[in-house]
Structures are given as structure tokens and as C-alpha cells.
């Protein structure tokens, strides 16, 4: 670390003191260490919250939990791209540009600094009934047999950690639109693919046929590229697009 100790990293952080207040930038200088991730940068700032101007400030507030790309809580816009602070390595960032820039997700209300309120995604899960209703505590026997391919597709969809990266990069998700976002559509597809969950596919599809539902997708297909869990979002959107089309035709002709 001796010869590395000279090297410092400039970290520009978007701050916001409370909900609805104006944001501002602060820059910190952090000693470079090998194998740092963005969380460790923020920890270094917390250890010595002094800006480059020498101003003592409050440690940067951020949300995090698992620190291994599983919980989805440390999503941030890092060097202009939505990603997880825990699995974003500083050396990789420095290879792109000399400064590290960290901002909160822009499609969610900021609680403080980098900590955003992601509850719209949990509301969306309720809207599409992203669960399988079981109306008894008694034994109901084994579930239906599922083809391995279906199970594999469902596994891919089930990896979603509600991190919000897909909403962040979606041009259709913004304050002027009601679009529910890719994540909820992916989860609706997940539960519609389950043999028991499929029994409630009607209400799920109908929830997605309302304003802000599947038809508000603009086909930019950013979601699937930004998803840190490789959830097949555009596949799910295509599948739900097909299912809602058929559901609408069926509903129209059958009643």
C-alpha cells in the first residue's frame, strides 16, 4: 500500500438533505486501495466526511444490505449508469474516467442523499398480484409437475431483487407517465408461468391492461441491458404483450 498511498480518487456525490429539498454536489478525495467497491468509497467518506474544500459535512446516507448483489437496495447512478454500489468496482470505474460520480436513482423520490424510496415497485407487485394465493393452511398435496425448461425460465425471472435499475433506465418511466415499469411485468410473467399461479393470470393481465400497464412500454429495451440480475425482461414484456392480446380478444369474443 505504500506506493499506492499517494494515489487518491476524486469522488463526486450528489447530496440532498431531505425529501423534496434541492440537491447539490460535493466532492471528496479518498485514498485509493486495491479492490475497492463503491460501498467502500462511501464508507471511507463516512469515516472522514470532509469535502475537498475542507468542509466538515454529514456522512453520505445510502441504502444497502447484503453487499453481494442480491438484495437490490444499493442501486445508484454511478458514472451515469444505474447499477449496484456493492458490485461496482472502483478500479473498473477509473478505467473509464478519472473521477467517480455517484447520484441517487432519478426515477424514485430521494429520502436523503443516495437513499431513495423504492416503494412504488412494491405497490406495483401488489397491483399485479405477484404471489400465488393459497387459501388453506392444510396440506394440499404436491404441486403440478413442471417441465425443466419452464422451471428454468421461471428461475431467471425469479432472480429479480426489486433494485429499480430497469425503471431507472426506462424512458417511459418518468414523472409524466404512469408506466408501471419492467420489473412488475417480469414478476407478473413469473407468476403466470407457475401452474398454480396461472389460475389467477386473468386478474394479473387485466391489471396490466390498465393505463400505465403493458401497453405503455415504448420498446426501448433498455431494461434488460441494465438489469444486474439478467432478468429476461424484454422476453417477459413480449410474453405479457402476447397474453394480453389473446386475453383481450378472448374476453371480447366470449362475453
Amino acid at each position, binding site marked *: 500500500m505504500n506506493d499506492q498511498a499517494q494515489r487518491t480518487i476524486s469522488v463526486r456525490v450528489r447530496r440532498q438533505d431531505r425529501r423534496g429539498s434541492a440537491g447539490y454536489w460535493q466532492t471528496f478525495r479518498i485514498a485509493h486501495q486495491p479492490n475497492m467497491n463503491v460501498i467502500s468509497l462511501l464508507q471511507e467518506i463516512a469515516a472522514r466526511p470532509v469535502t475537498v474544500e475542507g468542509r466538515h459535512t454529514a456522512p453520505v446516507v445510502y441504502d444497502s444490505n447484503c453487499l453481494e448483489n442480491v438484495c437490490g437496495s444499493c442501486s445508484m447512478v454511478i458514472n451515469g*449508469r444505474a447499477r449496484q454500489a456493492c458490485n461496482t468496482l472502483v478500479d473498473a470505474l477509473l478505467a473509464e474516467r478519472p473521477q467517480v460520480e455517484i447520484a441517487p436513482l432519478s426515477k424514485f423520490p430521494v429520502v436523503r442523499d443516495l437513499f431513495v424510496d423504492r416503494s412504488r415497485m412494491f405497490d406495483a407487485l401488489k397491483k399485479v398480484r405477484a404471489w400465488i394465493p393459497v387459501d388453506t393452511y392444510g396440506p394440499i398435496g404436491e404441486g403440478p409437475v413442471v417441465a425443466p425448461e419452464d422451471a428454468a425460465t421461471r428461475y431467471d425471472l425469479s432472480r429479480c431483487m426489486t433494485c429499480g435499475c430497469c425503471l431507472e433506465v426506462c424512458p417511459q418511466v418518468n414523472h409524466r407517465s404512469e*408506466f408501471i415499469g419492467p420489473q412488475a411485468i417480469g414478476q407478473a410473467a413469473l407468476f403466470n408461468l407457475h401452474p398454480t399461479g396461472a389460475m389467477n393470470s386473468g386478474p394479473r393481465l387485466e391489471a396490466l391492461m390498465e393505463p400505465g400497464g403493458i*401497453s405503455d412500454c415504448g*420498446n426501448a*429495451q433498455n431494461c434488460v441491458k441494465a438489469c444486474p440480475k439478467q432478468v429476461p425482461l424484454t*422476453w417477459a414484456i*413480449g*410474453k405479457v404483450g*402476447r397474453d394480453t392480446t*389473446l386475453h383481450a380478444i378472448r374476453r371480447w369474443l366470449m362475453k
Partner: protein
Amino acid sequence: MTTAVEAWLRRNHFLLRRLHSLSGMIPIGAFLVVHLYTNSLAAWDAHAFDKHVREIHEIPYLPLIELLLIFLPIAFHAAYGVAIAMQGRSNAAQYWWLDNWRYTLQRVTAWIALLFLVLHLLHFRFAHWIGGPEYQATIARGMTPFDLTQWGFVDGTPVAAWLWVTLYSVGLAASVFHFCNGISTFCITWGITVGDRARRRVFAASMLLGAVLLAWGFASLYALTARPKPDLRLPPQPDARPVALSPADGGAS
């Protein structure tokens, strides 16, 4: 009143979105292909173009067909499309992905195509509203459709002709991109292409179609503006000749 309309729009949201997507293909996209096909004839043979245009104008119920299959669908697609476009916020500069650029271009070309369409209609179809010629009347007075169209471009200063060509080139490119890219998004929206590979293939095919349409469009634009003017009065003469032959030609008399 506005709330009643809004409630109706919200109640029929899914249907309207699907109709917006469908109308871009049928009838509007289909019309664009037919229109550019007609134009392309001008590049091959002005007479074929004239014959085809006259045939079109003989279709029974033409004004009704025009209204129901062209003007109303375009008005709906444009009006609803503007409402949709207002809800998007492009981020292609931040997220530099091809599909994201296609998203942005789809909206940019929509605005260009809409503006171009209005000018194009005033230039030809509704020119008589702003003091220009009316198709049927002009044809009745003996002008050929090719001549009339060419006149629309080159009657005026060379600068004006170049402005027309530029305007039409941009309008053509925007309309063709909007339609062809729209084919691939139509297939996604309706759930026809679900997998990524299927989407890539449809996109490639739609861009190929776009190349054909552009070739047709530019060839006809060239024929109607830059190419030396064909003598359109020539062909009727072989038929007319035996009658008119005798005195003027100094032939058998």
C-alpha cells in the same frame, strides 16, 4: 366534458394503444408502400406512372376510401401518437444502446413525418386550398399526372426545386424509418416476437424493406425533379399519325 373524454380514454386504454399500433401497419403502412410503389413507376416509365395514377383515380368510392382508410387513420395515429410521445423522456444520450436510439428515432421521425405530411398534402392533394391546382380539374384540362407532379417540384426557381427535393428527401427518410422500425415494434407490442433472436430477425427484415422503399422513393424523386423531362406528348402520335399524316408529312395525298 374533458373528464368524460378522459375517463373514456382511460377505460379503452389498452384497445386504443393496440389500435394505434395496428393503424401504423394497416392501413397507414400499407398505404405508404402502395404510394411509394406508384411513385417508383415514375422512375421507370412516365407512361406507366400516368396509367397507374389514372387507374387509382377511377377506383369507385375513392373519396370515402380516402377518408376511412387514409385520412382518419392517419389523424388518429398522429393525435394519439403525439399524446404517447409526450409521455416519454428519451435518454439515448446517457444510455447509448441501439434499441434505445431506435426508441428516440422512432419519436423524432414521427414529428418529422407528421410535419412533412402536412406540407406534402398542401403541396399536392390539397394544393387548391392554398391557391394551387386541383388534380381532377388539371387532368381534365389535358395535363398528365407525371407533368402535374413534376410541375409541383420544378415550377419555380432552381433554389425552390432544391428546397423541395431536400424537404422530400428528409420527409421520405423519416416516414420510411418510422414505418419500418414500427414493424419491429409492432411485432413486440402485439407479442408476435417474444424472443430476442426473433426480434433481431424482424428488425433486419424491416430494415431491408426500408432500403427498398427508400430506393423507390429516391428514384421517383430523381425522375420527377432532376432527370431530363421526357416528352409526354410523343406516344399518342403513332396512333394519331395515319389521320394527321397526309398534308403535313407530304406523304401520300
